[in-house]
């Protein structure tokens, strides 16, 4: 059996390793187009904060890791897939054939159509090369504007702050983390960042960026402007599906996959940021551009490719973030669930907030701020669909008792009864 995996991020690497574990004899080719050892984007903030070196970003350590597993690593770019011929075309390597194919090409940073986005000094923070450029361009006291205060934006914020730069964050929406926090939570995080010396401009559009001598002039929608050294753009990501055009592999925003992570073409699978697959609670096909989904997708796709039929229950949208020491997290249907109850408790002065949403007596979504111990528990409650019984009413009155509820309902302890 010949397997080709396109993309050597976490989804691709875990898939290749799982293939080997499941089938000691098969041939595995892992193709990636970045001139790097397979690495984790998640580690880039630590690289920028100088708490690790480049080696520390690598997904696996030891020069011979892939060789020992008999995984053939190829640095090249796939430009097309022909399902009927079971072949892919490479820029350097001509054609390669497969029995089973995994598309794990991830996503790329999207840049808004604003004049000046192509100037030197305007960076993404998406690849290792981006990380090197930002590290070279910024030092203590550099004037930096970060565009976008979403999940990735806030992770990058933390890293830039650690470099000691003079930081302004600009977000088009009316709050920080507009897609992962409600107003209450978003406002608290904004106030927290401001208290740590970061300037936060919400409901602000960047209109243009221009070169002025060595610096950049950044203009805002309200007519004001500022002179800065570097602009870092974190305004969303888009799946890498362009090379599949004309292949007959069904795409929407990402590659559409079923509960086996298979595409509409037999023997062709997709995983990670590029895959649009079933969500855990609704079954709706969504893209969850997060590492846990990439790992889980990669593993399950590979089991299916190796002939071990494995059903995927669906991915849980989940973000956990540490912003200058304030931990925030969001899970599942935090924005409410049709017909379901919800409860919340906020303590703005001590930056604590907890919101739980229910379907009947099961938690299906949550937001938490300043509550580190709750993260694993909430995830567990949602993923295993724990029925809370009479604990639901207790949580409605006091969501902070979620830990007790978890212990009582999963460990059968008499805790709290």
């Amino acid at each position, binding site marked *: 059996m010949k397997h080709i995996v396109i993309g050597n991020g976490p989804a691709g690497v875990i898939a290749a390793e799982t293939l080997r574990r499941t089938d000691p004899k098969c041939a595995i080719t892992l193709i990636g187009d970045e001139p790097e050892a397979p690495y984790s984007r998640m580690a880039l903030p630590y690289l920028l904060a100088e708490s690790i070196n480049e080696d520390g970003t690598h997904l696996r350590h030891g020069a011979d890791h892939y060789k020992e597993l008999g995984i053939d690593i190829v640095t090249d770019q796939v430009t097309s897939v022909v399902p009927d011929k079971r072949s892919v075309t490479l820029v350097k390597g001509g054609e390669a054939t497969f029995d089973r194919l995994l598309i794990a090409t991830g*996503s790329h940073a999207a840049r808004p*159509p604003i004049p000046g986005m192509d100037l030197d000094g305007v960076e993404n923070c998406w690849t290792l090369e981006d990380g090197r450029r930002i590290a070279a361009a910024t030092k203590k006291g550099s004037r930096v504007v970060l565009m976008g205060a*979403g*999940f*990735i934006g806030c992770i990058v914020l933390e890293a830039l702050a650690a470099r000691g730069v003079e930081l302004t964050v600009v977000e088009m*929406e009316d709050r920080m983390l*507009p*897609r992962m926090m409600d107003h209450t939570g978003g406002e608290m995080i904004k106030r927290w960042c401001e208290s740590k010396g970061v300037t936060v401009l919400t409901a602000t559009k960047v209109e243009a960026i221009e070169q002025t001598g060595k610096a950049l002039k950044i203009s805002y929608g309200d007519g004001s402007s500022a002179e800065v050294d570097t602009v870092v753009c974190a305004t*969303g*990501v*888009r*799946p890498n599906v362009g090379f599949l055009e004309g292949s007959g592999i*069904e*795409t*929407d*925003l*990402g590659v*559409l996959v079923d509960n086996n992570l298979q595409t509409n073409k037999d023997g062709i699978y997709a995983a990670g*940021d590029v895959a*649009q697959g079933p969500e855990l609670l609704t079954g*709706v*096909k*969504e*893209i*969850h*551009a*997060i590492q846990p*989904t990439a790992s889980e997708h990669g593993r399950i796709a590979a089991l299916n490719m190796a002939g071990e039929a494995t059903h995927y229950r669906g991915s849980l*949208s989940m*973000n956990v973030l540490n912003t200058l020491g304030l931990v925030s997290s969001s899970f599942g249907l935090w*924005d*409410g669930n*049709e017909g379901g109850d919800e409860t919340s408790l906020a303590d703005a002065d001590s930056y604590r907030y907890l919101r739980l949403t229910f379907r009947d007596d099961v938690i299906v979504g949550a937001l938490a701020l300043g509550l580190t111990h709750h993260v694993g528990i909430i995830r567990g409650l949602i993923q295993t669909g724990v029925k809370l019984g009479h604990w639901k009413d207790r949580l409605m009155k006091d969501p902070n008792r979620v830990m007790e509820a978890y212990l009582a309902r999963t460990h059968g302890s008499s805790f709290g009864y």
Partner: protein
Amino acid sequence: MQIKVKTGGLLRRYLPEGSGSQCELDVAAGTTPLAVMGQLGLPAEDQYLVMLNGEVLPATQRGEIVLSENDELGLFPPLKGG
């Protein structure tokens, strides 16, 4: 005719005031999902996850499929996480 429109996340703001995350919408017979998205004012340059009666509706079909009375059109943000 009337259809049901469901939204999620920041797209709620495009529904008539006071709708929350879903509403009934009066549309012309023969209309397409793409036309409804235009009627609601969704910026054409953005990407969306569009569902029709619980099934994903790829971009290529949004301007072609004709909606029927009581169809349920779901309009969601493209991606979670990034």
